[in-house]
């Protein structure tokens, strides 16, 4: 006998099941999106010979085997790092820091960029400050950050924040500023308030720039993550990289490099996928 509670439960599970189905479908689409480019037949004809050369050259002694490990050696080292060195923990620690820094940068830079792009009064008072500070390369901030914040998580999150902040800020500000005035005019005539304009017109129009800013911010944030891990704290991929270098374990160093490369590639692919989903309205004519 179907009673109300059963019906409600059924619809809830159906909705949850529906969400799960959608989620899995998205994962599948994303995997195809990200890997399709790399595992294409064309690239295989380049990749496989390169791998063969890389394997052969150290083995044949053409380059010192100690300094250039062959892929097979790297693979063994990868397994070693994975099982013996808590690779998952280090990756987790790195990602946590990176996530914190990136989130902080986005939380500050996105609203600030929107405000700066929207209003020229705000812009004229704040933009010059950022134009002065931005050219300082983020690694140059390391010494003063260590002095002010010591070594440890706050320093690392701050450095990552610095790396990701400026690209997000400038791209958001540019995107908002360049909103087509036609859209603004037509919304204003209908009576849209500035707030409605911001949320319904400016931001959507600037979405492409915002995503690009995020992509660049991810890349520079990752650089700062590696640098910050070399200066303090004893966890993370950057730390593993430094340790491997200090203790002459070049195969492990290459493993760390590849891990970092993979993480960077993965994050950018996620952003590209999100962008392609959001830009649906651009496809067509």
């Amino acid at each position, binding site marked *: 006998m179907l009673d109300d509670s059963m019906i409600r439960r059924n619809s809830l599970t159906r909705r949850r099941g529906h969400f799960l189905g959608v989620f899995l479908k998205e994962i599948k689409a994303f995997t195809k999106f990200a890997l399709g480019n790399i595992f294409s037949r064309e690239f295989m004809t380049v990749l496989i010979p*390169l791998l063969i050369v890389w394997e052969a*050259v150290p083995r044949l002694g*053409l380059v010192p085997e100690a300094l250039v490990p062959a892929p097979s050696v790297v693979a063994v080292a990868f397994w070693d790092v994975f099982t013996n060195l808590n690779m998952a923990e280090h990756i987790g620690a790195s990602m946590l820091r990176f996530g914190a820094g990136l989130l902080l940068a986005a939380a500050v830079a996105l609203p600030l960029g929107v405000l700066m792009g929207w209003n020229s009064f705000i812009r004229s008072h704040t933009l010059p400050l950022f134009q002065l500070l931005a050219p300082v390369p983020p690694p140059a901030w390391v010494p003063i950050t260590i002095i002010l914040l010591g070594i440890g998580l706050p320093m690392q999150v701050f450095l990552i924040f610095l790396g990701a902040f400026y690209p997000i800020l400038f791209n958001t500000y540019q995107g908002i500023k360049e909103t087509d005035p036609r859209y603004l005019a037509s919304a204003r005539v209908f009576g849209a308030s500035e707030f409605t304009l911001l949320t319904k017109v400016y931001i959507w129009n600037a979405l492409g720039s915002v995503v690009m800013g995020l992509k660049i911010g991810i890349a520079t944030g990752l650089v700062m993550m590696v640098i910050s891990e070399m200066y303090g704290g004893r966890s993370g991929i950057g730390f593993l990289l430094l340790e491997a270098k200090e203790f002459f374990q070049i195969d492990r160093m290459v493993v760390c490099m590849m891990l970092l490369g993979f993480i960077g590639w993965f994050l950018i692919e996620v952003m590209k996928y999100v962008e392609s989903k959001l830009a649906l309205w651009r496809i067509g004519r």
Partner: protein
Amino acid sequence: MGQVVSLVVAGVLALAVLAGCQGIDASQRGVYRVGYVDDPLLAPLFLADEGSRSWELVRSGSSSDVGYALIAGEVNAGFVETSRARKLLDSQGGERLMVAGTMQFPYGATLVVREGLDMRLGDLGSARIAVQAQCALVRHFEVDALRFGLDLASLNYKNMPFPDMLPALEAGLVDAILVKSAHAALAEQQGHSILYQNWDVEEGQDECCPPAVFQTEYLLLVDSRDTSSASRLAEALLNASEAPVEELRSAIASATGTPVGLLENHPVAVFTPLTDAQRELFGEDRCLTIR
């Protein structure tokens, strides 16, 4: 067609890599090159360098860079910090390297407090002290602390590894650090003050006080293909180690720019041949007999 192109590209890349990696081996050069870092602990080297010599010093930023120079053959000998040197000996690139001797420095458990903090041993009760957990140092310190009447339970320890201690002190995360005297000398250079020192530490079984090498700061690694030059270097170092302390200190001062006054509170390192325990540790075949 595409495959031919990719093979050609791969071939060109291989040639480029080849060309880049073939440096001239240091052994083919005339002069015997010795890698080092700017550390007061290498006092005998600086003194030996002041006299007539048959080698050339090559400076590096860190001792692992000296290690890489050894692997690549850019230097024939070099001083590498102990733990790294041991890894280097075991690694693939260090096969032809041998240990010719060590730089020894007395161990000395030391408590360093941050500059500006005017503290006596009796005031330590509330201070945050950085220690490496489960180290022989802590045990020695606690014995002495009891003698000075400190309440062990009230001591506020913060565990961290040695490399993190000085930066933590600088940043104010801790008020005092418990280190061996080699690190203490470095801390004093930065302006901090030594509160307490105990020179009677014996080698232990743990990582911070390892047997056989607990007083070894640097290993002299040499290329096994040129043992005669290595022996000449080692001789000169041994002679320099027997010089009066003031000469060694002034050699440090002129080589690294450290003021002599700062060095007077500390002993100097000496170059010694390998002990039996050390030979056993590294393996007989990796050790060069010099005297």
